[in-house]
Structure formats: structure tokens, C-alpha cells
């Protein structure tokens, strides 16, 4: 990722823009009370994109099968809720564990080789899981999906309502908690070594960095987060369809992250918001047009606007600072 921020010493202070971002997310509860269902979907997808950002934006692994862990988490939480374990928070933890185990087990083949091999292996693993869920229809519901889930009240106090208020607050709280962890990770020596691997995988072993182990570690962490995102979707919508494992979920995710800007942590959430709001507006007119414009946007972005929205904002800020310093 050439457009990612230049390596500087980690700075853990909260910038005003970051504070404003989270305040805006909270304010949305009161400003757009009628759109909280879409809002919670955006937050969940943003969480999913955050996990891809860890491996793509920081470690430089291009994955076309990230939905594998998302879907596994969704089915874990869904099946638990269907068979009597409807407590949401422990469902999240179980999904995180399943996502982590799947990511860890597949990481040994997913992080080796060149970009093309990685792309193919992640794609293949995703397709295999999709096919597995499709075939195991007696467990997963197959193409009909998994419904009849009994998700219990959050913390025993807040039932999931039709307006999506609980879902939104729940998703936002989980996103924020995971975000704090990720923020800490990317500013740690471990996170810096990931950036080193991204920018110069051949030089990192020379300074004693265990490249393979680092990549496996970050892939596993990202898998756990993707699992949590999948579980959130299952619990808040009370439904798991086969498309949670589909190729287009992985491809759309990649598009959202790049649209928002990879390597900034915020890019995923911003990209998910733009993508999903545009999708819900445009695809109601005609789903085919939406796909065409999305494709065109991608082509134009590759040529004209690398770095995404967050990258462009950071570059603008940099320019402003330099001008005022003169």
C-alpha cells in the first residue's frame, strides 16, 4: 500500500478528528432514529473492514476470502442462539474463538507465497467454506438460511427492538472496544514490525523479525475480529444466510476498505458507511446500475485517488499544516 501513512514513531494521543468521529457515531442515535437498522449494519461491516485493514493495510496481505471467518462467526452465534444459548456476549466470544481458530489453521497456507498465491488460497478457502455450509443444509439451513434464533436480551436488560436502537448501541460499543485494541496493536512494536513486513518483507528477517510468525499472529487476530463482526450481524438481524460466506462479501469488503483508505483503521468504517448508504440509495433504483458505477468508481480510484477518503483527508490536512507553518 503505497498510500499508507509514512512511518513515524507511534503517537497514542487522540486527535480531535478521532474524538469527533466517535461523537458523531453516538450522535447518530438521536439525529437519525429512523435509520438505526442500516446504521448498525454499517458499524458491523465497519468492524469487519477493520479486521481486513489489520492484515491488508498494515501487513500487506491481499485477501479475497475474508468472509470465511465472518461467516464462521455468524454461523457460530446463530447456531448457539438457535440451540438454546441465546446470551449475546458469550456468543460473541465463541464466534471470536471460532474465527481465530479458522484463521490460525488456514494461516499456514494463506500467508505464504506471493500475492497471487495468497489471493488464490484465500479465495479457495472462502469458496470451500461456502460450499461446506451449502452442503450441510441440515445444520446451517442451506440456501434457506438459519432463522428461529432466540437471542436473549443484552445484559439481561435491553431487548433487541425493531427500530434497531439496541442493535446500534451494541454494535457501536463492540466496535469501539475492538477499535481500542486495534489502535493499541498497530502502535505497538508488533504493529510497527507488520508495517516493516508490508514495506520490505525481505529485509525484515535481516533485522531479526520472525516474518512468518508475525503474519500468522495478525491473521489470527483479524480472524477473531471478523468472527465477532459475523456474530454481531447474526444476533442483530436474527438471521444467517449463505451469503455471509459469499465471494461478493469478501470483494465488497475489499472495495469498502480501499474506498475509505487502508492503513488508517478509520478507513474501513468510513468506507463501509459511504458504500452501504450509496448502495441502499442507488440499488433501490436499479441493482445493475449500482454495480456498474461501483466498477467505474474502482477504476477511477486506482488511477486518480489512491489512499481513499481518509488518505485524502490526511493529505489535505498535511498541506494545510505546511502552508500555515510557512
Amino acid at each position: 500500500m503505497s498510500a499508507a501513512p509514512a512511518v513515524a514513531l507511534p503517537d497514542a494521543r487522540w486527535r480531535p478528528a478521532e474524538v469527533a468521529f466517535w461523537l458523531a457515531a453516538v450522535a447518530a442515535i438521536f439525529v437519525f432514529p429512523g435509520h438505526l437498522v442500516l446504521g448498525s449494519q454499517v458499524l458491523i461491516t465497519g468492524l469487519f473492514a477493520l479486521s481486513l485493514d489489520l492484515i491488508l493495510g498494515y501487513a500487506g496481505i491481499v485477501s479475497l476470502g475474508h468472509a470465511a471467518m465472518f461467516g464462521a462467526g455468524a454461523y457460530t452465534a446463530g447456531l448457539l442462539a438457535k440451540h438454546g444459548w441465546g446470551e449475546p456476549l458469550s456468543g460473541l466470544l465463541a464466534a471470536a474463538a471460532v474465527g481465530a481458530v479458522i484463521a490460525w489453521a488456514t494461516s499456514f497456507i494463506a500467508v505464504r507465497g506471493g500475492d497471487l498465491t495468497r489471493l488464490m488460497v484465500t479465495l479457495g478457502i472462502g469458496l470451500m467454506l461456502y460450499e461446506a455450509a451449502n452442503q450441510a443444509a441440515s445444520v446451517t439451513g442451506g440456501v434457506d438460511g438459519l432463522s428461529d434464533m432466540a437471542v436473549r436480551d443484552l445484559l439481561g436488560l435491553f431487548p433487541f427492538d425493531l427500530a434497531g436502537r439496541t442493535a446500534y448501541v451494541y454494535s457501536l460499543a463492540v466496535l469501539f472496544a475492538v477499535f481500542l485494541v486495534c489502535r493499541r496493536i498497530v502502535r505497538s512494536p508488533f504493529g510497527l514490525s507488520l508495517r516493516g513486513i508490508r514495506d520490505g518483507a525481505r529485509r525484515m528477517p535481516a533485522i531479526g523479525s520472525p516474518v512468518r510468525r508475525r503474519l500468522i499472529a495478525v491473521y489470527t487476530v483479524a480472524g477473531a475480529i471478523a468472527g465477532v463482526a459475523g456474530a454481531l450481524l447474526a444476533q442483530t438481524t436474527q438471521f444467517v444466510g449463505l451469503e455471509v460466506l459469499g465471494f461478493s462479501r469478501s470483494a465488497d469488503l475489499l472495495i469498502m476498505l480501499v474506498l475509505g483508505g487502508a492503513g488508517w483503521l478509520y478507513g474501513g468504517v468510513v468506507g463501509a458507511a459511504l458504500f452501504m448508504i450509496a448502495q441502499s440509495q442507488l440499488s433501490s433504483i436499479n441493482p445493475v446500475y449500482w454495480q456498474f458505477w461501483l466498477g467505474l468508481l474502482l477504476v477511477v480510484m486506482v488511477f486518480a485517488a489512491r489512499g481513499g477518503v481518509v488518505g485524502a483527508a490526511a493529505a489535505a490536512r498535511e498541506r494545510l499544516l505546511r502552508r500555515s507553518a510557512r
Partner: protein
Amino acid sequence: MFASLPGVLFDGVAYGSLLFLMSIGLSVTMGLMRFINLAHGAFAMLGGYVCVVGMARLGVPFLLMLPLAFLAAAAAGAVLERTLYRRLYRRSPLDQVLFSLGLTLMSVAGATYVWGSGQQPVHLPGFLLGQVRVLGVDVGVYRLFLVALVGAITAALVLLVRRTRFGARIRASVDDAQASAGLGINVTRVFSVTFTLGSGLAGLGGALAIDVLGLDPTFPLKYLVYFLLVVVVGGAGSIAGTLAASLLLGVFDVSGKYYVPAVGAFVIYGLMVVLLLLFPGGLRRGAR
């Protein structure tokens, strides 16, 4: 209703030859410029639609439409290479993936807009229908025609690459583009011509594939995995490797779907992961 093993194997070989035709261009261009082109299937789809439209609207016979499908896809490939692809050779793999994914989405939406989302029918000429008995095995005439045609094209490609001056330039550029450029080979032009040829072959493959694989706007996405699979397993830039990988995948996919339909698609993905584990650099390099 239990087809003989040789019959199923032959179907697999016919399917594999189609895969070969549609992925050989991708393999050579990937070997040449390391360009990850997810939009290769769009050229195959274009060839298919040109064939259908030419036959249905203009009444051109099938055999005459095949070279026209080749030309149409080749022209599209040449234009796109000149205008867009060329600027991205030195970009990161992620940029190439995003660009070609965008192109694929546009082609899917465009085809849906122009031709609708349904399956397109193809009416093969009478002499390609029916079955014949070859060495005691019943095989479809059309599949026999496919295998023979692809065999002839493969022979021509091998001659082109092994025996001509242009082929020598391609081989040199695949092995080391920088050194070849230093020796006065115009690598950019070699790539342009190869890309055009590869797109044309994909278009031809797309036209031939309508009867076997079907044709609808999701074609580039549906078979994307297969094309990439062939290239990764066969090793980019190798005709022999691509052919071996195509036939292997064709036979395994067809016999897997025929004999063990319950695990259907697993066979092919499982095969892919196993092959990638055994031969990380492709079959050709693995065998060396």
C-alpha cells in the same frame, strides 16, 4: 444411466480444453508482466455474446462466427491494453486487483443492460450435434470438435512460441523482461501483441463454451476461479503447464460432479489447495 469411465474422462478433457483456451492468454500475460488480471473472463464473455448476436440477429453461420468472436475480443483487448492496462504494470498487486475487479463489475453490469440477465441459447449446426462411437466409446460430436480444434490451436501456439522470432521474444521477456529490454527487444510491444492474442483466444473460448458452460452476464465472475486456478497451478507463462493444469482440472471437475455430486465443488477447490501446497511455484517449476 451410468456413463462409462472413458466417456466421463473424455468430457473432462473437452471441458479442460475450453479452460485452456480461455486461460492461456491470462497465463502468458501474467508471466510477462506479473499483472493480476481478474477481468480476463470478460473477454471470453464478449466473444460469447458476439457469437450469439451474430448468429441470432444476422444469421451468420456458427463456424464463421468463431473467428469473428476472436477478432472482437482481440480488438477490445488491444484497446484496453493501450489505454488502461499499460499504465498499471508497475503498480502494486492490490491496485491491479482493484482495477480489474472494477472492470469485471462494469462488464457484468454492461452485459446485463444490453443483453438481459438470462441464459443465451446457441444453435449449433447439425453436423456438430449427436454422438459418434470412437474406439468403443460414445462421445458427443461437438466435444470431439472442441478437443480437435483446441489441439490444433495448441500446436500452432507451441510452433509460434518455439519456432518463430516473435516466440523467442516472448520467451525472453517472460524469463527476464529487463535483460530482454536491454538486448533491444521492445517488451512493451511484445506484451501488447500477447495481450491482444490472449484476449482473442479467450473470446474464441467464450464462443465455443456457450454450449458447454452456458452464457449469462455473471460468466466472468463464475469462471474467474477456474481461470486463476489454471494459471496458478500451471505456473504463469508456460503453455505446457497451463495445458496440463487445464486438463487436470477439467477431468477432476467433471468426474467429481458426476460420480460424487454431494461433494461437487469441493473436489476442485480441494485439488487447488493441495496442488498449491505441493507446487507453490506451479506444476512446471515443481517438476523441474
